[in-house]
């Protein structure tokens, strides 16, 4: 069963008929071929699929793509390019805030909200606010350091 939906992904308008059962995650990965967003658990338990929906971090595995009418979605591909990294992306590299890299897109998309959160101004608060993004490699302290650096530099 298909339904028509119109929304934007990284600024591009999507206007298409899609399987009502398709999650935003599967839609952006399989149809739009934006595979930077990862499927870690498919049940809202790991954060690897985090994207921004209307500027707010959100789990794309727990959204039907059909429900995004009129929304604006930003994925990891939409925030920086290899030759023009977002400050967070650069800080993640500098602080070695990943190892295998699989959770990294989700971490960065989640951190995008945290760097703008005035309540997240200590390492402890950042750590709590980033707790919806699991990292089995254990890069947590480095993730906090990367976010802290971007916040303190005021580059965003």
């Amino acid at each position, binding site marked *: 069963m298909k339904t028509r939906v119109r929304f934007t992904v990284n600024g591009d308008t999507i206007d298409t008929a899609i*399987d009502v*059962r*398709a999650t935003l995650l*599967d839609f952006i*990965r*399989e149809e739009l*071929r*934006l*595979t*930077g*967003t*990862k*499927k*870690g*658990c*498919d*049940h809202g*338990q*790991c954060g*690897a699929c985090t994207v921004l929906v209307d500027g707010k971090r959100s789990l794309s595995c727990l959204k039907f793509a059909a429900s995004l009418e009129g929304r604006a979605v930003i*994925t*990891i*591909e939409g925030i*920086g*390019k*290899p030759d023009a*990294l977002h400050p967070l*992306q*650069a800080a*993640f*590299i*500098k602080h*070695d805030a*990943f*190892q*295998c*890299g*699989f*959770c*990294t*897109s989700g971490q*960065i998309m989640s951190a995008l909200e945290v760097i703008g959160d005035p309540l997240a101004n200590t390492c*402890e608060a950042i*750590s*709590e606010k*980033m*707790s*919806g*993004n*699991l*990292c*089995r*490699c*254990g*890069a*947590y*302290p*480095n*993730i*906090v350091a990367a976010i802290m650096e971007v916040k303190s530099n005021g580059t965003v």
Partner: protein
Amino acid sequence: MVKSIGAPHDRIDGIPKVTGGATYAADVKLEGQLYAIALQSTIAAGKIVALESASAEATPGVVAVYSHLNARQALTWIHADELLALSAEALGLSAFPSGSSRPRGYLPLTSPEIYFAGQWIAVVVAESIEAARHGVGRIKVRYEVDAASVVMNDEKDDWIEPTFFFGADMQVQRGDAPKTRHGEVFIQETYATPMQLHQPMEPSATTAYWDGDDVTLFDSTQGVVATREYVAQSLKVPKEKVRVISAYVGGGFGSKNQVWPHQALAAHMARALGRPVRLQLTRSDMALASGHRSFTEQDVRLSADRDGKIRLLQHISRVPTSIQGGFFEPCGLNSLLLYGAEELDVRHRVSRKNIPTPTPFRAPGETPGSFALESALDELAHTLKMDPLELRRRNFPSRDSYHDRDWSSNHLLECYRLGAAAFSWPGRYVPPRSIREGSEMVGYGMATTAYPAPALPATVKLRLQVQGRAIIETSATDIGTGMYTILAQTVADELGLPVSQLEVRLGDSSFPNAPTAGRSKSTASVLPAARQACLSLREKLALLGASYSPTPQSNESIFSLLEREAIPEVVVEGTSTGMPREHDLSFYSFGAHFVEVRVDEEIGRIRVSRVVSALDCGRIINPKTATSQIKGGIVFGIGMALMEQGEFDPIHSRLINDNLADYHIPVNADIGEIDVIFIDKPDTRFNEFGARGLGEIGVPGTAAAITNALYCATGKRIRSLPATAAALL
């Protein structure tokens, strides 16, 4: 030029990883690609008596349903000994005495027999993920249920005594043990560790496609060469026809170390259907179809003099394996090496249970074994009212008495000294429950860690191109370890090129062979091969008339030489030899963990507030990635100590927490301060770099250091992990 080795170089795979450009196995989508999802058995033992797939097959978008009823014919999917010998099922089978009936391993979809709950019994292939999921939900299965057991029973189980595993005898008795009681102080306790799940963030996936007789797999594996062997054997095609690519692997920790059936199954289905197929494991499958660390029970007995000298160390492990497989946790490995007791009794007993086949998981053996051993040492220290660090110092093993060899290099005492100083270790006996801060009880604990330093032969190809860059190729994988980066650093130093001029290509079975990334062996296997390749390159350039020295100035002349001679590319290979043969030595890494915990007893809040780990891993090639890897090992240890526990339903013998909401791994807020100190003294008798691997050594000992600290804080000894609020209060 600044040396690259030893510098905290950023990961060279950083940009693709932070921009979403790194392509993992399930990120590949090919023209006409199909999606496959498996159905799991709901029973733990018995037989399928009916499997109704017509409704699933009729589901819109479903292309095929495979089960034991049709896989043999439709997929040429056949259970064969020579295949199973290459699979995860086989690891450990050789340790079982030939007298005991040797099981054949299990291969899903080959028979109606059920050996464990969660076993794959059907696979649905469809045009979309949605349709595949829909189809799986429509398969109806009827079973004949047999009695299953997932709990060990000392008296009733049919125990097997394995022989030789992981380079050690599994039944070691030295001296008069256990008949005599030499010392004056005794400890005898039983320790238990639960089932643990690897849960790398990337669920394993294989995308397979055929081009004529050639098949390519985009796979998530720690070892592309081993995978190619297995898949070729399964498909009955020459291995040259199989290419396995794992350029990026989203973590493994052992779950992608062995080869699992899904990797071949994707290729079989793609061949049968004439279309590319992606088979991605669900998070639940990751708990059941790619191994786990089994639960263990360990009896440890220590006997010591009043001055703390350990006379007897007895460590008896009871561990399970699956009905058809072979892997078991060799818990006693570190007990053979550490503390040098003259009387040693280290044995293992194995019982077959209705569990999926266990598999190596970040320091298999050493991790659960260290929990028992290092806890027992702490108990001994408290009995003696002695500083636990001082107890370990007094029992420092000056040589490897089990193998009767000297250590190639052992700076454990330096780890104790530097770690204690950085931690501000009390340096005296601290009685339990003696430190309170506000509502919290504070405790300190420590433990030793040790892990072998193996190496295997590896080959690295180096291609110097006239355009002014060098390409490094080997089949080794970077599962988050930093292999991309340290290879580049190595070649940069040897050739005097900046890292930016190098391109490292990994994880492709068409590249020269390197061992599977596991057991902390990649650094010592691959880097010497890279150096050999660089030496070959210099020789080759010399033949071309270039006087080569690794300085930036000369490189310009190398590239201009290639240009002048109209040579587009010079290709060389270098091969390493594995373990050094010129020394009869024991090659090990060592370390010590120091932990502070805080326990708010009224509300049951337990936090690991501070960890300092000092490690002797030889020379550190890249302190940045090395520190990250050790921190990651410590985070594993924190998870093991406080929360990780696979649980079986007691009636149905089925794992109930096969997901990340119910199987807890640490989140960001669980992790406090972690300080990693490297002794950084080269082990030059191991290899020319003096470097040993460090993927596992952060894990062993960490859990015990934490529970030892919990004892110090609360007076409550945790002998069965995890140390939850329920267990502690």
